[in-house]
């Protein structure tokens, strides 16, 4: 039988009750998000402590890979997209607080109506001919990224009856090592859907979960133009010592 939001809320509470305190990343086995059930390994991860592991280095990107206007998602078509124009900016740091410089940041998102420019999205909300919703940039010497885009809408999904994803922007990040790879989602402050969303709630630790919610920053808002959000990203994972010393 199809689960209700009440069922999911109860499952989230039950998962919270047994979650390891201080755990940052979501448990891959998280039944309130139904698609995890058959897609998580049951064996423990095998820990690699090899200082020669290739994964302690990682891919690099540069100005050949990214064009300047890729960071402005409102300028990819002839006309202006519909919705609320926003800028999102922040720094990409490693877990010691050092900036990740010159590295690729990729984003994708639904349009202001909550519809992805993806053939698989059947939500009967309008596509926007002036908005695709994909962008990329390279971080600067302080690890900073900046995107101009439209605030995405919430949208329904079929995890359970009347399931709605809170508005979010998908982020893909690289560090100096493949082990620092991160794909995550940025959420907007004050959204009543946060508490009901099993993907966000899969991060059981409240402090860690807050890391996924951007801050509205009035000083970043531009008069007569756009609202500003700030969101810093801290990458997990070790990197080869020689790379850190070389940067």
């Amino acid at each position, binding site marked *: 039988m199809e689960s209700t939001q009440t069922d999911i809320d109860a499952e989230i509470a039950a998962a919270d009750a047994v979650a390891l305190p201080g755990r940052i*990343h979501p448990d891959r086995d998280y039944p309130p998000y139904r698609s995890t059930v058959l897609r998580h*390994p049951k064996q423990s991860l095998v820990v690699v402590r090899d200082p020669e592991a290739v994964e302690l280095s990682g891919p690099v990107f540069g100005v050949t890979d990214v064009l300047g206007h890729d960071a402005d998602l409102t300028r990819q078509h002839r006309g202006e997209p519909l919705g609320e124009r926003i800028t999102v900016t922040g720094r990409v740091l490693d877990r010691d607080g050092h900036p990740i410089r010159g590295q690729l940041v*990729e984003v*994708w998102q639904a349009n202001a109506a909550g519809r992805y420019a993806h053939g*698989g999205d059947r939500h009967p909300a309008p596509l926007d001919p002036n908005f695709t919703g994909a962008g990329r940039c390279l971080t600067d010497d302080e690890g900073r990224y900046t995107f101009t885009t439209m605030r995405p809408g919430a949208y329904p999904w079929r995890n359970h009856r009347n399931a709605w994803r809170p508005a979010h922007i998908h982020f893909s990040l690289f560090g100096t090592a493949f082990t620092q790879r991160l794909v995550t989602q940025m959420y907007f402050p004050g959204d009543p859907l946060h508490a009901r969303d099993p993907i966000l709630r899969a991060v059981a630790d409240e402090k860690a979960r807050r890391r996924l919610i951007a801050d509205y920053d009035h000083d970043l808002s531009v008069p007569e133009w756009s609202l500003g959000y700030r969101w810093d990203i801290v990458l997990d994972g070790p990197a080869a010592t020689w790379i850190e010393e070389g940067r």
Partner: protein
Amino acid sequence: MTVTPSQTVGPFYGYALPFPGGADLAPGHPGAITVHGYVYDGAGAPVPDALLEFWQAGPDGSRAGATGSMRRDPVTGAVAGRDGVAFTGFGRVATDPDGHYTLRTLPPGGTPYLGVCVFARGLLHHLYTRVYLESSPGDPVLSGLTAERAATLIATPERPGVLRFDVRLQYDGTHEETVFLAFE
């Protein structure tokens, strides 16, 4: 600092992350090998919305990589593809509706394996694994595993230059679950 938690890649990354030529690390190179296979879930069903990324040493053993994996044409904005000279070491390929992927690359120098990072809808935190291009006695990862578990990391030669490597996200009752790795 509090690390930023992972979230699933979801189902709709397809117009943002894959790029033309992402699965061909050595376009036009006569020495390229093909690594291909399927991604399966715990019911033994293919996973049509997984994204695999590969990172490896260059044929000369270099781990520095090179820019230009998604080199762009500044006039049209389209992906122009790798330049065919620099070996970037990075590949990205989404599984097709059959759950299948194909990668073309050059064998790495100095190490017998390709690093793999697996993303998928329903996977809240990516998984790392490795494709060993040959059985590698003495390898610090393989030597710590039982033969059955180690076998999940070793690609199977199908014919010269073509190797099969499947990813099994979960034991399906018949097939061994792929070994996934954590780095400390």
